[in-house]
């Protein structure tokens, strides 16, 4: 591995961490699309900043562009507040307009300078190690590394300093406000950090990857845990993992590093989405099936309890009475037998004392409108689940 390769991976990893932290909060606060809007609408800020400073890495440009990001948020909120359109429409209106202005400014003015839209959208991570930061003639490393490193430091410091406030205002806005933490300050603070991170990272990895790095690791982590700290750590791990594997994938394929990191993030999310233990799609579908059968079982037991007539409880008549198909009736009957809820005597179905007890309790919960309690009961009564 050459030193340039190590530097690229280092930059990519730092960007991943710097994005994962605000990203986690954006996902939790249901503002993920704001990051997309910011990533697009910083373009005019970057262009104006570039006209002034003539340097894509200058801190002034980063501040100007971050300001555009915050302006986007303010504009979206203003439009939303007028009540003329809904929030999502407001987002969808603001950022294409700002982006268009940026594109036109580039087309009009910056044709002859090094600033093209592809670079803004995609970045060129492969070139990042060649832009060195020289301090009094001594080469101290690539500029992007320093920029994203300082942004990361600030983000981590802010996170440590305001973790409690952030956590509280994310999960219980009302309580946070009543305890005296201004929701507005936290909100705009988060927006500013997201904007600065987006701007700082765009040069290295491009606007789209920033969005992916903010949302995808956090979304994957969200499916795996319900603990904020664990979620933060997991999303950082996911981000770094995809950054490094994405780099090598791009190396092998000889294609855009940013695109390849995003693809890795996508693969990672797909795996988590499918296989996450309790929130993954397979687990969810399995649970839904289980619950469907268990609800059928309950219906069946209630039916048995309500009818003393042998006619109604004959095995062969059951599907007519409850209007189920044969297969389903058989599954439910087997489950009930396995759990000792019923006995079958001479093709007539009886409730066992255990089944009777279960049904009585369930009815109690149903008539008092506490259906959710039934779920807890199942652990006590069921030997086998549906």
């Amino acid at each position: 591995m050459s030193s340039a390769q190590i530097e690229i991976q280092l930059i990519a990893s730092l960007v991943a961490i710097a994005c994962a932290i605000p990203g986690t909060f954006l996902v939790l606060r249901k503002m993920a699309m704001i990051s997309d809007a910011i990533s697009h609408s910083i373009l005019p800020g970057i262009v104006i900043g570039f006209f002034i400073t003539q340097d894509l890495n200058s801190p002034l440009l980063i501040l100007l562009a971050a300001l555009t990001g915050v302006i986007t948020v303010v504009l979206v909120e203003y439009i939303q507040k007028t009540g003329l359109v809904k929030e999502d429409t407001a987002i969808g209106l603001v950022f294409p307009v700002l982006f268009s202005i940026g594109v036109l400014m580039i087309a009009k003015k910056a044709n002859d300078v090094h600033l093209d839209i592809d670079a803004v959208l995609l970045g060129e991570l492969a070139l990042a190690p060649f832009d060195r930061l020289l301090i009094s003639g001594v080469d101290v490393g690539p500029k992007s590394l320093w920029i994203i490193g300082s942004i990361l430091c600030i983000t981590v410091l802010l996170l440590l300093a305001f973790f409690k406030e952030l956590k509280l205002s994310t999960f219980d806005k009302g309580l946070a406000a009543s305890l005296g933490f201004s929701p507005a300050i936290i909100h705009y603070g988060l927006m500013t950090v997201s904007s600065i991170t987006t701007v700082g990272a765009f040069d290295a990895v491009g606007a789209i990857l920033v969005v992916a790095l903010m949302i995808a690791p956090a979304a994957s982590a969200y499916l795996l845990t319900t603990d904020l700290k664990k979620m933060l750590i997991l999303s950082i791990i996911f981000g770094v993992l995809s950054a490094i594997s994405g780099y090598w994938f791009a190396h092998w394929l000889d294609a855009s590093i940013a695109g390849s990191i995003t693809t890795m993030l996508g693969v990672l999310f797909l795996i988590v989405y499918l296989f996450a233990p309790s929130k993954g799609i397979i687990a969810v579908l399995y649970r839904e099936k289980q619950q469907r059968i268990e609800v059928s079982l309950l219906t069946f037991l209630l039916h048995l309890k309500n009818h003393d007539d042998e006619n109604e409880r004959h095995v062969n008549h059951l599907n007519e009475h409850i209007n189920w198909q044969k297969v389903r009736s058989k599954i439910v009957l087997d489950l009930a037998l396995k759990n000792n809820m019923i006995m079958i005597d001479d093709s007539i179905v009886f409730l066992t004392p255990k089944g009777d007890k279960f049904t009585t309790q369930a009815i109690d919960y149903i008539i008092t409108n506490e259906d959710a309690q039934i779920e807890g009961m199942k652990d006590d009564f069921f030997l086998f689940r549906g």
Partner: protein
Amino acid sequence: MDIQEYFSLVFSDYTLRTITLGTAILGAVTGMLGSFAVLRKQSLLGDAISHAALPGIAISFLITGAKDSNTLLLGALVSGLIGTFWIRGIISKTHLKSDTALGLILSLFFGFGMLLLTFIQKQPNANQAGLDKYLFGQAATLIESDVWMMAIVTGICLFVLLLFWKEFKILLFDKDYAKTLGFNTKAIDILITSFIVLAIVLGLQTVGVVLMSAMLLAPAAAARQWTNSLATMVFLAAIFGAFSGVFGTAISASQDNLSTGPVIVLVAAVFVFVSFVFSPSRGLLFKQIRFIKNRRDLQLHKTLSFMYNIAETHDDISHPHEIKILNNFHGFTKGTLKKLVDKNYVILEGSTWSLTNDGFKTALNLYNQLTKKDE
């Protein structure tokens, strides 16, 4: 070329005519379908779909090796639909919220698409140039067959829209009611979403992946401000969209170095801005005017009721009082007093005022009657 020249050339010049027609039709169809997206609160879905279409373009190029726009758009359609249904899957089956799902699919698909595009660019056969026009769109590459394609799709959209108008409308405003009436809401939902995807894919070549969502939203958001009727809104949105297309093309053709897509978006944004400010019933300007007028009326009422309270203590309601006893706190200004005189509620004599019978009655009923004919 200036704008006048453009309009004189638009009917004779092949390229200009094609582009203008294309953008106009595109604007109309996206405006039409965008109305549904906006009303269903799916505005950002368009953004996600247009980004999600990119890998489809790249993959269909990789498979066929041809740059025929219809093949590429077919790929875009498939991958846009996959993206859309994945978003729905994420929202309905996991804990992730809709904004996360949208942002995820948008960025992941787009990143994957960019990976494929850069991969294609490194390939030895040099046929790949021009695929990146789908990023920002290039109206100049429109040819007559593309326009025909758009026209046909628009025709189908219009036909389906008219055929299922009732179903779309009821699904839009009262989904549960539609369900109880026995409509297959899922099928209608899928139908309308697919049409939205189709409209977006059609626009990719002209406006590009990044800005396509604005084409969908802006005309609809503008049209929404002028009407409360769905039919009128769809119609208006189509008109706004078409005009944005035509004006955008005209402006970008009359200047050097202006790409059509962003200009069209900006023109559409102007429509939105004008609608937001000047719409008679919802617009900000008239809202503000109404607000000020209401405040003035309130001041007037306050003054009148203060006068009433004083007059009440006298046997003769028209007993004159000094103007000085009226104060600002009760909303008194010279203007309000003059208005009261104009309305014949008050008579001024020198430095005194007195309530008239009319004024006394109005003040008496001020807070009893909610509807006043004179306010």
